[in-house]
């Protein structure tokens, strides 16, 4: 194994900036050009879904304090829009972007020219068509009762095949190249790309196609959800962090020798943590306790990533350099969120604490901390690095980059802090014996709406910038320039 080291690529461009007045187009290397088509497809799809998700999030947030809002039509019921928003965010935005990001990372790390890009693009096309069909079906009135499995089971084969084409096949193809170098990021990408299809397939079979008995469905679902969040989204985002942090800081990773243990312990324990999200449920106690033990064991990978990442950031004024680098500003933000998210998961798997916050907004805040404040922010940071290299264009506007960061950062801090605070206070009031109706804080829904609008503004700024760049793409490669 070898450690990611800085190479000859241009380093971070300093403070967020758009096109320099006297600059030409950045170069597109041959390696980048080989993956440009599928990666741009995945990022463009992800962006469109992100906008859809943001608009839906505003509508559902308003509905929580004004239930009559857009309530004239059955298809706009909160229960349906909420499911659609969640699926669009996780399968449309996060998964599309991570498939694209993983593809780019694999080719960049291997200096490998990807020859069959159309296969990945075909996978992406199937993925997005399946998601569109799923969204329409849910809006028309057919959904399942399990988070992130709401889409009709008939679409599962399409998602499965699409993922094999778009992510697993390229990952295995890249990873099996005859080379002596294997990077930490590649372990994570390979692991994530292997875990998702296997877990998705087994879960579909056991929950929707041949349902297991009663509450076992909830157990299988919790196993799926934790794998999806920690080992698909989380591990893919960690792969990006292991790449960008040392590269953009131009340094080696602190405590590199620990990365093997960090990788294996995360994969070993994350899959067992599902039942820790079902404490107090009708499942047997031994199953719930296994989940709690596994959640506590996440302390090991958390400690290692903390040593790796924060140790690296603490050297040579790494924090201030990160703040002045567009990509690292997002990545460092994400790292703090990741650490908090896993730490909260460990602490709140304690039965007494879990009993207080379970079923309140607190758990939604925990999920947002991981899926948005960590995963999405890392994706944004990666996009600021990758897209100029794929399109041969600069980001059109530095102001929009600032607007994007500050809107999303403020929104996610406000939203997560609000969910944690109001979730905890509601749980504490319920524990003190207050009637349920008196424990609901209307300020919580209001704050949620303000944050949803801020998210929409930030995402619109990002989308305008990104589509400006994607549509002005230059096809100039190193080769072309030399000719």
């Amino acid at each position, binding site marked *: 194994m070898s450690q990611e080291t800085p190479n000859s690529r241009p380093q971070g461009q300093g403070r967020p900036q758009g096109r320099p007045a006297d600059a030409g187009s950045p170069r597109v290397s041959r390696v980048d050009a080989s993956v440009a088509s599928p990666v741009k497809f995945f990022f463009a799809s992800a962006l469109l879904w992100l906008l859809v998700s943001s608009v839906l999030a505003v509508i559902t947030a308003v509905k929580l304090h004004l239930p009559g809002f857009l309530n004239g039509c059955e298809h706009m019921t909160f229960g*349906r829009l909420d499911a659609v928003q969640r699926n669009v965010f996780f399968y449309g935005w996060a998964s599309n972007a991570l498939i694209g990001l993983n593809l780019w990372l694999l080719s960049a790390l291997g200096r490998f020219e990807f020859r069959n890009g159309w296969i990945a693009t075909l996978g992406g096309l199937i993925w997005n068509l399946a998601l569109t069909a799923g969204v329409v079906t849910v809006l028309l009135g057919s959904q399942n009762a399990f988070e992130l499995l709401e889409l009709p089971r008939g679409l599962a084969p399409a998602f499965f095949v699409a993922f094999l084409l778009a992510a697993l096949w390229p990952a295995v193809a890249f990873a099996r190249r005859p080379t002596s170098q294997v990077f930490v990021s590649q372990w994570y990408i390979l692991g994530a790309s292997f875990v998702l299809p296997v877990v998705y397939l087994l879960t579909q079979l056991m929950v929707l196609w041949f349902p297991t008995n009663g509450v*076992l469905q909830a157990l299988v679902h919790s196993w799926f959800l934790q794998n999806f969040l920690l080992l698909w989204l989380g591990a893919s985002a960690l792969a990006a962090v292991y790449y960008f942090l040392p590269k953009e800081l131009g340094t080696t990773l602190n405590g590199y020798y620990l990365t093997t243990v960090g990788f294996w312990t995360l994969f070993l324990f994350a899959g067992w943590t599902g039942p820790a999200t079902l404490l107090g449920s009708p*499942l047997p106690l031994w*199953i719930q306790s296994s989940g709690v033990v596994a959640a506590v064991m996440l302390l090991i990978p958390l400690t290692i990533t903390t040593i790796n990442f924060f140790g690296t950031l603490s050297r040579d004024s790494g924090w201030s350099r990160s703040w002045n680098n567009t990509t690292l500003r997002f990545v460092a933000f994400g790292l703090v969120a990741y650490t908090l998210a896993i730490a909260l998961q460990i602490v709140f798997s304690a*039965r007494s604490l879990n009993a207080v916050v379970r079923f309140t907004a607190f758990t939604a805040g925990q999920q947002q901390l991981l899926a948005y404040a960590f995963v999405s922010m890392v994706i944004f940071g990666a996009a600021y690095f990758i897209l100029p290299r794929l399109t041969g264009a600069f980001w059109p506007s530095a102001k929009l980059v600032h607007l994007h960061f500050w809107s999303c950062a403020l929104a996610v801090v406000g939203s997560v802090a609000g969910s944690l605070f109001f979730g905890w206070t509601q749980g504490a009031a319920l524990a003190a014996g207050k009637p349920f109706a008196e424990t609901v804080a209307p300020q919580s829904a209001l704050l949620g709406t303000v944050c949803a609008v801020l998210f929409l503004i930030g995402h619109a700024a990002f989308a305008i910038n990104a589509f400006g760049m994607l549509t002005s793409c230059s096809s100039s490669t190193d080769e072309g320039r030399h000719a």
Partner: protein
Amino acid sequence: MKNLNLILAGVFFTVAAPFGGLLLSGHAQLGALGRAPAEEGGPLFPAKEPGLAIQGRQVYLELGCVACHTQQVRPAGQGKDIAQGWGVRPSVARDYVLQSQVALGNRRVGPDLANYGARAKSDAEIAAHLSAPAAGSSMPAYAFLFSPAKDGSLQPNERGTALIAYLKSLRQDYSSPEAKLKQ
């Protein structure tokens, strides 16, 4: 760690271990769980749902009610669900064995519904709540589940009637071998 076959094999093991340790073991324990009487010779519980309630369950799922309502009563010491009046005993695995799709839920924007049928007073009360929720409730009105009758009043239509039947069928107020009701 250069051997990628080894990495793939290791990752396979990390997926297989919880699959076997949690899911298959759980299945071995609960996979064949069925209805049972609280005492020998007594009636079997949980009771079978009437046909209309089964249709109503579909309406409940279609509308995504699970986004805001759970259907599980936690034991005393793990939350105050029973003190809230949401159930008379904790939910047990056997309560769910007849459900083709279990809607335990994980968020309570509204109250738990595991034992709603036992505390709802009448069909009319449920209908009134669905057509015009009380002020201050986060729940929207489900006008499309109702049609105007000849006398001008709103009456539940076919789907509305089914949903009401389903909500009334939600009961966990019987004794089961794992959770006996206190006499």
